[in-house]
């Protein structure tokens, strides 16, 4: 049996990290003309948390993550990252975070190693460190043999792995991942998960959006759910389970709601009686 004991130094660093707030937002709002994409979102993500940020399509997940990473300016509200106000300390904050955005933001006409060197240089790493880290990352991601291939010729999964490698090359304290497992095969997903769990074990904070709820359930310690731009649930999985607990669940002693069930209950309650009767349900189909 494996020992669960952690070295004292590592344990204390994790404990200190857990007491610190990594990300906090206050009244975070973003409007596009008359449309309110994100409204009055108040987030508190403790350092060292693996934080899942969920919501149906168009709920405001990507808009929120864009604001948290400086890709989009909020219309109202404030963002604090590691105690720094994003609006006034954007450069300092950006040095501490790593991002895999929605479109991956890769430079297609570079090779993987050239791209990592470019990113390393942009984050102020010296040449030797960049070189060493990029070699290690490419080895870890199983991309080291693709020395001449341009990023534009990579498969989707390879691009995702490279995007993640680029996001961590400078050793960020917080990692923002927008749909990191989308279009990634099981083997590549395993590599990504292994890396992310390693980062969490070392005290980093990960803020992740994903539609693959099984992965979120397995990885994340805390989950928030956004719908129609508003935060409607936030807490640990157990807290969320308790929040949507019903009498019928109590009748079944073995009942343990999955994240998918929690998600559907939370979103379903939020959207009211949106479901159509069987007669109304696309009766012309088949």
């Amino acid at each position, binding site marked *: 049996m494996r020992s669960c004991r952690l070295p004292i130094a590592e344990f204390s660093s994790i404990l200190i990290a857990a007491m610190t707030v990594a990300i906090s937002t206050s009244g975070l709002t973003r409007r596009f003309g008359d449309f309110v994409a994100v409204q009055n979102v108040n987030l508190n993500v403790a350092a060292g948390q693996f934080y899942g940020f969920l919501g149906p399509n168009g709920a405001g997940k990507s808009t929120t993550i864009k604001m948290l*990473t*400086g*890709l*989009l*300016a909020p219309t109202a509200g404030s963002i604090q990252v590691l105690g720094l106000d994003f609006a006034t300390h*954007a*450069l*300092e904050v*950006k*040095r501490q975070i790593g*991002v895999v*955005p929605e*479109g*991956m*933001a*890769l*430079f*297609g*006409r*570079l*090779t993987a*190693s*050239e791209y990592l*060197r*470019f*990113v390393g*240089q*942009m*984050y*102020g790493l010296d*040449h030797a460190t960049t*070189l060493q880290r*990029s*070699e290690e990352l*490419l080895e870890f991601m199983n991309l*080291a*043999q*693709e*020395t*001449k*291939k*341009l990023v*534009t*010729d990579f498969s989707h999964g390879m691009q995702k792995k490279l995007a993640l490698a680029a996001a961590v090359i400078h050793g960020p304290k917080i990692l923002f991942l927008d749909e990191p497992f989308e279009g990634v095969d099981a083997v590549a997903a395993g590599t990504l998960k292994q890396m992310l769990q390693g980062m969490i074990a070392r005290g980093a904070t990960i803020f992740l959006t994903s539609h693959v709820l099984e992965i979120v359930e397995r990885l994340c310690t805390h989950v928030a759910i956004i719908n129609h731009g508003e935060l409607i649930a936030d807490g640990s999985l157990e807290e969320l389970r308790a929040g949507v607990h019903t009498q019928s669940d109590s009748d079944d002693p073995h009942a343990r709601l999955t994240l998918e069930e929690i998600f559907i209950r939370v979103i379903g309650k939020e959207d009211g009686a949106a479901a159509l009767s069987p007669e109304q349900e696309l*009766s*012309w189909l088949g």
Partner: protein
Amino acid sequence: MARIETGLAAGLEPPAGDAPRPVASLRRHFATISWLRWRIFVNSLRGKGAKGELVAKIVSYPILAVMVLGPAIGSGIGSYYLVDKGEVSLLSIPLWIIFVLWQFIGVNTSSTGPSFDLSSLIRFPIRYRDYFLIRLSFGLMDPPTLAGIACLISMSLGIAIAAPGLFPWAAMALFVYAVCNVLFSRMIYSWMERWLAQRRTRELFTGIILAVSLGAQFLAQYAQRLSHSGNHAPTNPWLEKAGNALVAINWLLPPGLTASSIDHFHSGDMLIAVASLGGLLLFTLTFLVILHLRLHAQFRGEDLSEAPAPAKAKAAAIKTVSQAPAAAAVSFSFLPATVAGCLIKEIRYLLRSGPKLYVLIMPVFVVFLFSVRSSGMNLTGISHHSVNGLLFSYGCAYTQLIFVALIYNSLGGDGAGVQFYFMAPLRMRDVMLGKNLLTIGIFAIEVILIYIASAIISTPAPFDLAVATLAWSLFTLFLNMSIGNIRSIVSPKALDPAKVRSQNVSGLNSLISLGLVAGSVILGILMSMLCSYLQMGYWVAAAAFAALTALSFVLYITVLGQVDGIASRNAESLTRELSKT
């Protein structure tokens, strides 16, 4: 009835209105696609800066009309003249010119709006016949086709005025020739799509096209020079042989066959007239069949262009990362790290973009072309020596003209990668500075090469003229970079680095940049004329442009200081536009 009974027997109650729907008619398909294209156009006017783009489009239409009408009027007058003088067989000359314009002018045209890929129609229930006609019909309004058809109509009118009896036959032959050209261009582009779908093939193909294009220009100019090598000198024997061979081949190809058909009808030799027309029809039919083969393969979902490149043996590809190309060794350590990083990235992008490299070798090539062309200028009364003395200035002016494409959409090649600039701890001014440094570096290399080329071909440019030209170039470059940096952020368009034809460009950016270069050139000419009038050499111009360079440099630095604010305000539209796939 049998079908319904079978359905009921299987327990599948057909819902109301479940009768098999007829496939939509061709007319309906055309109407739908026309509507779709119209909506795409209208919706393209809704975004940020759309009003400016619309104004640019409106301003560009008269220019386009002149481009179409100019050759058309020339073709009409030329045809009238040839038929009137009884040189009907020489109609093959304008027909060849029309062919070249029609087929090759499109390679260098850019699209100022989003387009719709007609090959995507195969996912809808559409008949092959309709698909074929749609693929053939849409695109008939593109500038090369419009220009070609206008020229042929004009030729018909010219022939009709010169010889009214010839008109019906000539009109018929020219109509078949027009159809032949339409089918030929569609055939060529549909097959090119198959090859151009893969990046490596596309770049190789682009390189070949560009090399052929440059080679053809050079050969044409060289041939012209040989033919003018002396007023009384006998024609060069090599040229004579080549010319005779080309003339013989000409009669077997569509332009020659069309001219031959009209010529022999005019001279009453109906048999050859009909045979020539038959030959032209045979070409048309062949192009139709080859086009059909490709489109039918596409229609069946067997688009060969989608085939992945053969996988290489992994063992051959395995190398350690440290064995990366030598270009990585360049570090520009004297620059701030972020600026140096951007500069290295830009150099890598440049070296991997065939079209960009083509653009950059053009100025030196143009110097050669000017020099060769100027050999014939004695006939027009312009001093050969005065033209050759200005080769350096011509080359520099041309460089400014082609640089606008790099400067006014400098973020276009980054595509979705532009988001990185907003996520990473760096200032946009560093990014733009990296890009501008590359532009300045290329400009410096271009200037040296142009100077050497002009010195080898003719004589080195006079020192005062060289200094004045250099000062003018720097003034224009800094002015262009000042405005170009803003326009690159405010009105970007995603670029495919491997593509030469139909790149999506901002019409307003094109208009501004061309206006600025034109204005600068006019200023240079005026200053040059002033210097000639005052008989003071070019030092006055050099001093004036040096002062203007200082002003434009101050403007450049000021704008660079504002770039972060401009980028911050436009971050959303910039990333959205460049992340479009």
